[in-house]
C-alpha cells in the first residue's frame, strides 16, 4: 500500500525513451525568449532562412521536402515541424494530465463532502504514532514534526528497497508486492468505501450483490492494471485507486501532520528525482538502460498513439527499440487514429518485433503520452481533500487549491518540455497548493464572507 506513494516520480524519462513530450531526434527546443538556436546546421539553415525571409521561399522548402537530395534540409524541416508539433502537443499533454488529476480530485472532494466517515477521527496509522490531542501548541507542532519524520523515513526505506529489488532484478518479488497492494486497494478499500457510501445514502444492499459487484470490480481492475486492458479503463482504475488511497490518508493522517508531511514529501520528491544518487532517479535510469517501462501499476500514462513512420532506416531502428508502442502498431494498419489504446504491460510479455520500415515520404508523427506517477495523484488529492475537509465548510479554499495545483502541474510540464528529463511533479504544485490553502483560509475567507454578507461584489 505504501508503494504507490513511494513512486512519486512524475515525469518522463529522457526523450530518447520516446515517452517525453518531444520525439527523440529533435534538438532542444529554444526557449520563448531566446531566438532560434540551432544545434544542428540543417535545421538552423532551413528555419533561419525562412525566418529572415531570404531567398529561400516556402516553395523551395517544399521542393526540398519532396526531393531526395537535401536530406539534411529535410531532416531540418522535419525537426522544425517536430518542434512546432512539440509545442502543440505540449498543450495537449497538459490537458491530458489536467483531466485525470481533476477527475481524481473531484472524486475525493465529492466523497469528503458527502460521506462523513472520511472526516471522522478514528485512530491513526502506525506510521504516525504521535497524537495531536495535546494541550499546548508547541507539543502539537513537535508531534506533527516527529510524525512526519517517521513517515518520510518509512517512505525512503520502502523506495530504496524497491530500487534495490529492481536493480538486482527481483522482478517476481516486486510483482508480488504490487499485486498484493493492488489487491488490497481494489478489494478491501473498495469494500469499505462502498459500505460507507451505502450507509450515507441509506441504501440497502444484500451480500450476494455486494460480492458480485466487488468481485467484478476488483478482478477487472487487477486485469486492467497488471495485464492488458482498454487504455481508458486502465486510466479509470488508476484514478480510482489513487482516490481511494488519498481518502485513506485524509482519514488517518492527523491535521497538522498532514500538512507537514505534504511539505516534506515534496522536498523529498525534489531530492529523490533530481539528485544523482536519488532513488527515483536511479529507478528511472535503470529502467532506461534496460529499455523497460516502469511498472504500469505505479504510473498513469495518457498514451495517445498516432502513426508510425519516417522513411529513415536508422530512425526506424531506433524507434523499434521502443517497445511501448510496437505491439499496438503491429495491429494497426490505419494511420492517424488518435487516442488509440494500448496497455503498458503488453510490451513486456510480447517480444519486440522489428518495425516495418515505411517508405512513404509523407510525414506522420508518432505521439507519446505523458506519464505521471500515481503518488502525485494521491498527494494532489490529499491536499485538495484536506482543504475540503478542514476549511470550515468553505468552497473557496478548495477551489483555490485546485487552481494552484493545476497551475503547478502546467509549470512542471513546461519545465519538462525545456529540460526533457524526468522531473518531480510534487514540489511546484504542492508549494502553490499549500500557500493558497493557508492564505485563502486565513485571509481571503474572512474578506469574501464579509463581502457576501453585505452582498458586495468585487
Amino acid at each position: 500500500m505504501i508503494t504507490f506513494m513511494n513512486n512519486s516520480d512524475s515525469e518522463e524519462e529522457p526523450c530518447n525513451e520516446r515517452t517525453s513530450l518531444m520525439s527523440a531526434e529533435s534538438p532542444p527546443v529554444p526557449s520563448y525568449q531566446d531566438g532560434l538556436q540551432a544545434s544542428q546546421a540543417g535545421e538552423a539553415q532551413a528555419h533561419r532562412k525562412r525566418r529572415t525571409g531570404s531567398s529561400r521561399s516556402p516553395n523551395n522548402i517544399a521542393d526540398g521536402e519532396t526531393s531526395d537530395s537535401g536530406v539534411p534540409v529535410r531532416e531540418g524541416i522535419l525537426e522544425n515541424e517536430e518542434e512546432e508539433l512539440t509545442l502543440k502537443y505540449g498543450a495537449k499533454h497538459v490537458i491530458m494530465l489536467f483531466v485525470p488529476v481533476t477527475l481524481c480530485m473531484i472524486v475525493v472532494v465529492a466523497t469528503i463532502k458527502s460521506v462523513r466517515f472520511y472526516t471522522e477521527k478514528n485512530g491513526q496509522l502506525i506510521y504516525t504514532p504521535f497524537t495531536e490531542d495535546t494541550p499546548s501548541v508547541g507539543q502539537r507542532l513537535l508531534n506533527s514534526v516527529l510524525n512526519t519524520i517517521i513517515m518520510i523515513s518509512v517512505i525512503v526505506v520502502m523506495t530504496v528497497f524497491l530500487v534495490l529489488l529492481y536493480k538486482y532484478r527481483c522482478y517476481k518479488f516486486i510483482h508480488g508486492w504490487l499485486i498484493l497492494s493492488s489487491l488490497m486497494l481494489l478489494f478491501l478499500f473498495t469494500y469499505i468505501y462502498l459500505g460507507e457510501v451505502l450507509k450515507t445514502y441509506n441504501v440497502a444492499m444484500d451480500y450476494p450483490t455486494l460480492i458480485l459487484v466487488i468481485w467484478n470490480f476488483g478482478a477487472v481492475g487487477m486485469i486492467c492494471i497488471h495485464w492488458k486492458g482498454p487504455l481508458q479503463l486502465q486510466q479509470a482504475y488508476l484514478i480510482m485507486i489513487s482516490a481511494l488511497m488519498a481518502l485513506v490518508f485524509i482519514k488517518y493522517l492527523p491535521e497538522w501532520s498532514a500538512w507537514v508531511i505534504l511539505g516534506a514529501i515534496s522536498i523529498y520528491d525534489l531530492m529523490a528525482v533530481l539528485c544523482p544518487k536519488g532513488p527515483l532517479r536511479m529507478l528511472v535510469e535503470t529502467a532506461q538502460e534496460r529499455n523497460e517501462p516502469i511498472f504500469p501499476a505505479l504510473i498513469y500514462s495518457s498514451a495517445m498513439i498516432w502513426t508510425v513512420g519516417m522513411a529513415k532506416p536508422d530512425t526506424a531502428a531506433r524507434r523499434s527499440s521502443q517497445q511501448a508502442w510496437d505491439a499496438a502498431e503491429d495491429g494497426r494498419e490505419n494511420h492517424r487514429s488518435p487516442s488509440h489504446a494500448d496497455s503498458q504491460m503488453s510490451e513486456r510479455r510480447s517480444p519486440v518485433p522489428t518495425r516495418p520500415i515505411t517508405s512513404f515520404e509523407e510525414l506522420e508523427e508518432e505521439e507519446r503520452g505523458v506519464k505521471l506517477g500515481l503518488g502525485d495523484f494521491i498527494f494532489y488529492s490529499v491536499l485538495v481533500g484536506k482543504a475540503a475537509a478542514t476549511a470550515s465548510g468553505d468552497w473557496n479554499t478548495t477551489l483555490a487549491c485546485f487552481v494552484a495545483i493545476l497551475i503547478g502541474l502546467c509549470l512542471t510540464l513546461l519545465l519538462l518540455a525545456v529540460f526533457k528529463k524526468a522531473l518531480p511533479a510534487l514540489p511546484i504544485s504542492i508549494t502553490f497548493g499549500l500557500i493558497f490553502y493557508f492564505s485563502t483560509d486565513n485571509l481571503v475567507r474572512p474578506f469574501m464572507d464579509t463581502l457576501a454578507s453585505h452582498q458586495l461584489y468585487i
Partner: protein
Amino acid sequence: MAAAVFFGCTGIAFGPAIALVLLTVAKEPLRVIVLVAGAFFWLVSLLLASLVWFVSVRLSDRGDAALQRALLGFGAAVSVLLQELFRFAYFKLLKKADEGLATISEDGRSPISLRQMAYVSGLSFGIISGVFSVINILADSIGPGTVGIHGDSPYYFITSAFLTMALVLLHTFWGVIFFDACEKRRYGCLGLVVASHLLTSGLTFLNPRYAASLGPIFIITLCTGLWAFVTAGGSFRSLLKCLSCKQEDDSRVMTYSALRVPCED
C-alpha cells in the same frame, strides 16, 4: 424547493459562462491553459487585496461599524485596482507567450491570436470571480433554511445569481477591451475600463436596494458588451451575416463556369 433554488441560481449565474466555455474553450488545449492561468492571476490579486484588508482591519477598532464598512469599501476598491493590475500583468505575459509561440511555429503565426487570448482571459477572470463570490451562497441554498428571516431581503439568492451573471459577462467584455486598449496604447480606454469596474463594484454597495444596483449594472453590462463587440471588430453587417448563416460568395474566387479547359488544338 431548496434544490430548485440551487439549480436555478447556478443556471442563472453560470449558464452563459458554461456555455461559452463548452462552445469556445473546451476543445482547444491552449485556450484551456489560458483559462486556468487567468484564474490563477485573479486569485493572486485577490490574495493580495485580502491581505491589505486584513491588515487594515487588524489595525482598526473592531467595534466601530461605520469604520468597518468604510474599510470594506476600501478593501473592495483595492481589490478592483489589483484585479486590473493583474489583468495588465497577464496581458504582458500573454503577449510574450504569443511572440514565443509565433517564433516556434512553422508559419510564423501563433496557433492562438491575441484577440482570442483576450477573450479567454476575460472569461477566466469572470468565471473565477463569479465562482468565488457566489459558490458558498449556492452551497448554502441547498440546505434547509429561510431567506431573510431577520428582515433582510428575501430575494438574496436570485439577485446574487443575476449579479454574478452580470459580473462574468462584464469581465469577459473588459478583458477584450482592456487587451485591445493595451495593444493600441489607448490609455483612455484603459481608464474607462478601470472606472467602469470601480463603478460596478460601487453600485453593489447599494444592495439591497436592487432597483438602484441591478438595473444600472445590467445597463453597464449591455453597453460594455456593445463596446467589446465593436472593439473585437464586429459590426451590424457582420452580425447579420452571422445570423443569416449564409455562405457568401467570395468575390475573389472565380466560379467554376468561368474556367475553361484550354483548347487542345
